[in-house]
């Protein structure tokens, strides 16, 4: 039985991971800077929840008082509801603190969830993108700096601190019935826009497949950086059809206006509706023998089913 700390426990993904671990008989401590909404999904009765900012001292106590075997840092905030300063505090300074605490308290393994957004959707992207390729997102969209810096920090950590076995997972669009990130909320809209004349190849991964990858990395002896791509690469509008979404086109010159209308949609996401950013997860499949179990139809439809059917 292991004791595992999971960040971002207010989110669906961390809760799914916790659920799996608790079912396997492990002890799980969940942390989040947000409050966890009361009716917890079944299976999480034994979960210890703590509300703490990743950059404050409460989190230190969690490391002091529990003999942690592993830390899953799944709580990167990509939400643009938070200001750039707060995102930097949480994602960069907070992650640094968590990683430092892992070294200080002899945590054996650390899994950090990064994002494929840092590769950036760019006309110069080749297909597919492997782990050691340049991160182009910052070229046009400096707002994503916090995600790039967090990823860089974690990847240098892999080699600077061999005593903590660190795995960095760069996941593609994470969707699923309990995930509430920008992409899944976007797909759940009653009317989903697309850019007129553009239909880039896109990937999606189901939360349960990602949880399986996280647990697989923890159980394996691997360290390093891995992309996590979904089951099939499909064009964006095929994905919208699979979501049974009503769509409407937006001409390219009006995109910035449309993004403002859409509220807290990050600007850097626009290019993902325009150019392909297809990643390859061959390294992960070979390293831990993982592969997605949920088909792309089920992945997308399970994300939007509740919203579509009422």
């Amino acid at each position: 039985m292991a004791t595992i700390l999971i960040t971002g426990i207010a989110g669906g993904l961390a809760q799914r991971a916790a659920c799996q671990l608790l079912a396997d008989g492990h002890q799980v401590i969940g942390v989040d800077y947000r409050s966890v909404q009361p009716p917890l999904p079944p299976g999480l009765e034994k979960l210890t929840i703590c509300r703490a900012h990743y950059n404050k001292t409460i989190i230190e106590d969690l490391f002091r008082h529990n003999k942690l075997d592993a830390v899953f840092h799944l709580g990167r905030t990509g939400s643009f509801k938070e200001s750039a300063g707060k995102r930097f505090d949480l994602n960069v300074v907070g992650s640094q603190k968590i990683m430092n605490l892992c070294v200080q308290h002899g945590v054996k393994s650390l899994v950090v969830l990064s994002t494929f957004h840092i590769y950036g959707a760019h006309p110069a992207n080749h297909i597919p993108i492997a782990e050691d390729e340049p991160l182009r997102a910052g070229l046009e969209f400096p707002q994503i700096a916090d995600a790039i810096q967090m990823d860089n920090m974690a990847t240098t950590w892999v080699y600077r601190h061999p005593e903590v076995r660190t795995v960095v997972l760069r996941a593609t669009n994470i969707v699923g019935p309990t995930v509430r990130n920008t992409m899944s909320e976007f797909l759940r809209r009653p009317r989903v826009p697309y850019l007129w004349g553009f239909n880039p190849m896109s990937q999606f991964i189901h939360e349960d497949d990602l949880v399986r990858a996280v647990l697989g990395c923890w159980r394996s002896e691997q360290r390093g950086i891995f992309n996590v791509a979904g089951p099939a690469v499909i064009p964006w509008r095929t994905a919208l059809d699979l979501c049974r979404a009503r769509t409407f086109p937006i001409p390219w010159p009006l995109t910035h206006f449309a993004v403002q209308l859409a509220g807290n949609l990050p600007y850097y996401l626009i290019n993902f509706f325009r150019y392909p950013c297809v990643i390859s997860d061959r390294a992960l499949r070979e390293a831990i023998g993982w592969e997605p179990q949920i088909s792309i139809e089920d992945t997308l439809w399970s994300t939007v089913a509740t919203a579509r059917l009422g």
Partner: protein
Amino acid sequence: MLSVQRMVRPCRLVPTFINPAHVSARTPCSGRSFWKESEVSFLNQLLHPLIERASALVHRHVSDETLAHAHEIGARLTSLAQIAPQARSHFIDPAVSSAIDSLPNELNEFGFDPWGFSPEQAKFYYTLSRPVYDYFRPEIHGIENVPAGRVLIVPNHSGQFPFDGVVIAVACLLQAKPPRLVRAMAERWVSTLPFINEMFARSGVVLGDPINCRNLLEADQAILVFPEGARGSGKTFWDRYKLRSFGRGFMRLALQTGAPIVPVAVIGAEESIISVYDWQAAAKILRVPYAPIHPLLPILGPLAYLPMPTKFRIYFGKPMYFNGPFDDEDSVIQKKVDDVQNTVQQMINDGLAARRSVFF
């Protein structure tokens, strides 16, 4: 764990006007609605009397018979829209269709490869490019020289617009046995063009990037690369059939992946659209690599850029095999590149010597 209601093949729903039932029925977790509920009720309040008044007006002035007639026309239009996909399948050239069906490409269950190639849509676009092919009445020599498996097809580039690429691609699909899909390497700015980018990707064109190219060669695909690049196709009439110096990238890829190189000479494209001057200042403003000036531009205007029906003669040479490290010094690689360039130039000279007429 995952309970998913299986569904019939989804189709794009016909957008209806704001449906309050739809909005109010959504669960709190369904995220932001495009319309806020207050906006919906406001719009409905605003529009409802208007719609009622309009329908009353229609009923007062238009007889029931006419209305029934209008309904019938509407129904016919709908049924026309429903048969549009079938009409599209009738439009597709059977030769193109059977050639594309015989391709060994690996596709996912939706019929796409990771680069966005889709056989079903490629059939449509290749059928569209078939008239271009027929217009130039190409004479294909030595297509049997294109070997099975990975290969780099290296032609000269000419003719201002990439009709030479279109003709080679259609020739490889329709004339080669077995049919080959060539993956043409496109300039970066192509992927920034709306509609064009999707059309190209679906018909198998990919971004001209070394890693893309390597990945495709490792998947045993045929790559069409113009090593002269835009400098080649933007040549003026005075420089026709004089090769611009080849880039070295294709040779490094051939060495790295062990792919043979098939040199190709295209005769006839140089004369289809004639450029007497490359106006660089205009090209910079238009953000294109070159701006050809046609001699008949003052008389014909933009019509001058319609290609003339010159006869294309395409010579596929014997495959060339190269050995050695791919990361060697430029001077070593350059010798091998020169070898290919001289072969292409020789094939062009031979082809020109054998040609009796530009148009026949």
